[in-house]
């Protein structure tokens, strides 16, 4: 699909990993949260270390250095690809082959923030992110990494148990899948929305509204292999 923001990776087993890549907005928000955390840590430390004079200033610089360059790296590798900001936004950094990110890849992608930040406010990274089908900034391209959405755990609701009924005409596989998907998801929708969607199948079931939905449930049950 043209508008789909999924990135498919074919694994060694020959099966495609279907990765929902994250666009610039959630990533920018996650960055802002991480930035606030870093500033807060630095401020809190500066109050303590400020009392120590010159030595405190030295330690402070070292901490600032580590926070600037290694905070994202440590978060990504030790916290499973999720810094606190990314956790809040439901994002995760992974290697482009779908595996967890390692030290070197994380170090690379964060070093190249220098370039993505140019000329100001991550403009370069934003352009790369919008132009790339996998929404990668330059650092992600060079490090071979992706930022993906963590999908919420889907509770696997089964289709409603009704008396199965075969469809009046043979259906294409995609049509079958659409009807089963409908039956599995419709119970979670409002009645009005459910009936509205069921109306789309009016030519097939020759009914409208809730009668159409009932008929689709019956076809779905038949397609799922349930027999009386």
């Amino acid at each position: 699909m043209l508008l789909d923001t999924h990135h498919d990776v074919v694994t060694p087993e020959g099966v495609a990993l279907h990765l929902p890549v994250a666009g610039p907005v959630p990533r920018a928000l996650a960055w802002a949260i991480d930035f606030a955390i870093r500033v807060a840590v630095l401020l809190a430390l500066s109050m303590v270390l400020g009392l120590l004079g010159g030595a405190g200033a030295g330690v402070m610089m070292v901490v600032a250095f580590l926070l600037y360059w290694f905070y994202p790296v440590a978060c990504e590798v030790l916290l499973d690809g999720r810094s606190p900001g990314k956790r809040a936004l439901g994002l995760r950094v992974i290697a482009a082959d779908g595996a967890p990110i390692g030290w070197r890849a994380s170090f690379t992608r964060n070093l190249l923030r220098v370039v993505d930040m140019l000329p100001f406010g991550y403009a370069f990274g934003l352009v790369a992110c919008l132009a790339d089908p996998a929404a990668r900034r330059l650092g992600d391209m060079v490090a071979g990494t992706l930022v993906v959405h963590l999908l919420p755990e889907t509770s696997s609701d089964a289709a409603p148990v009704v008396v199965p009924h075969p469809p009046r005409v043979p259906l294409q596989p995609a049509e079958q899948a659409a009807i089963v998907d409908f039956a599995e998801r419709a119970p979670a929708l409002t009645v009005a929305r459910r009936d509205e969607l069921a109306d789309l199948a009016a030519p097939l079931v020759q009914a409208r509204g809730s009668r159409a939905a009932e008929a689709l449930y019956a076809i779905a049950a038949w397609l799922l292999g349930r027999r009386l």
Partner: protein
Amino acid sequence: MKQDAFVARHRAEWDAFERWLDTRGDSARRARTTRDAGAIPDSEIPARYRRLTQQLALAARRGYSTQVTARLQALMQRGHAVLYRTPAPRWRRVAAFFLGGFPRLVREEWRCMLAAAIMLYVPGILVFAAIQIDPDLSSAIFPPEMLAQFESMYDPADAARKLGRDSGTDIAMFGFYIFNNISIAFKTFASGALAAIGSIFVLLQNGLIIGGVAGHLQAVGRGDPFWRFVCGHSAFELTAIVIAGGAGLQIGLRMLAPGQQRRIDALIEAGRRGALLSAGVFAMLVIAAFLEAFWSSIGWMPAAVKYSVAAMLWSLVGLWLWRGGRGLLPGELEGPQA
């Protein structure tokens, strides 16, 4: 096969795999402490995982509903993450990298390193020589208050003072060197991704500044304290700048001329090398910061001691980069040579 029958047949298998992922898959630390007798043995996991991917392919092909494929997809993704994760770094491997792998990598990129060295040293030496001929040139490079500051930092009249600094204790200066120098080195490397322009710029600029400061101090007769200050840590610092610049040049070159690779593959290779080189540069600059803060600044040390230590450090760095990693490193298999 109808979807319900498919699910009924394989559900137990999927549940078992999920239980294994929950108990042993997510964190290596938890896996070491738990002994779940009921779970699948670890050795069976790769086979189980392959079966799962097969079932997912079947499910997708037969047009089973999203509920089923999504569950399989999620299980497979978690399994993939466990089976293909990067192995944790071993301390022995890390040490072997710094002793051997890094010099080897530097030698592999020797063309870029040579180019970077030329870009740093040639402008520096030219400016230094020019200022010796016409001392007024230094005021064309630096504003007068900066020149005054340089001069006061290397004031030989005040023997008790620390060399090379206006104020600040050793620890404060150590923090400053870490923050400042390593940030510059990282930026020198990373800005190479802008078609190498950033690295070239930083190298030339640093060459001019270093040459200018050295030339000015030499010309006004403050050469001795200056050389005593810089001779030691410069072995690590200047070499690290050159390597960071070379790492930036190689990424820029691979971006401009990827050769027979796809550009993205060339970039990934360049990024891998650049990150490893930057890790080495990082270590070198930490050493340089220690030397600069706690050794180079000692004002009373006789020049002879300073210079012999410096000669030792320079040869150490040279020997390390020249000979390091000539043998096999731990973690490398014996090559195919008979």
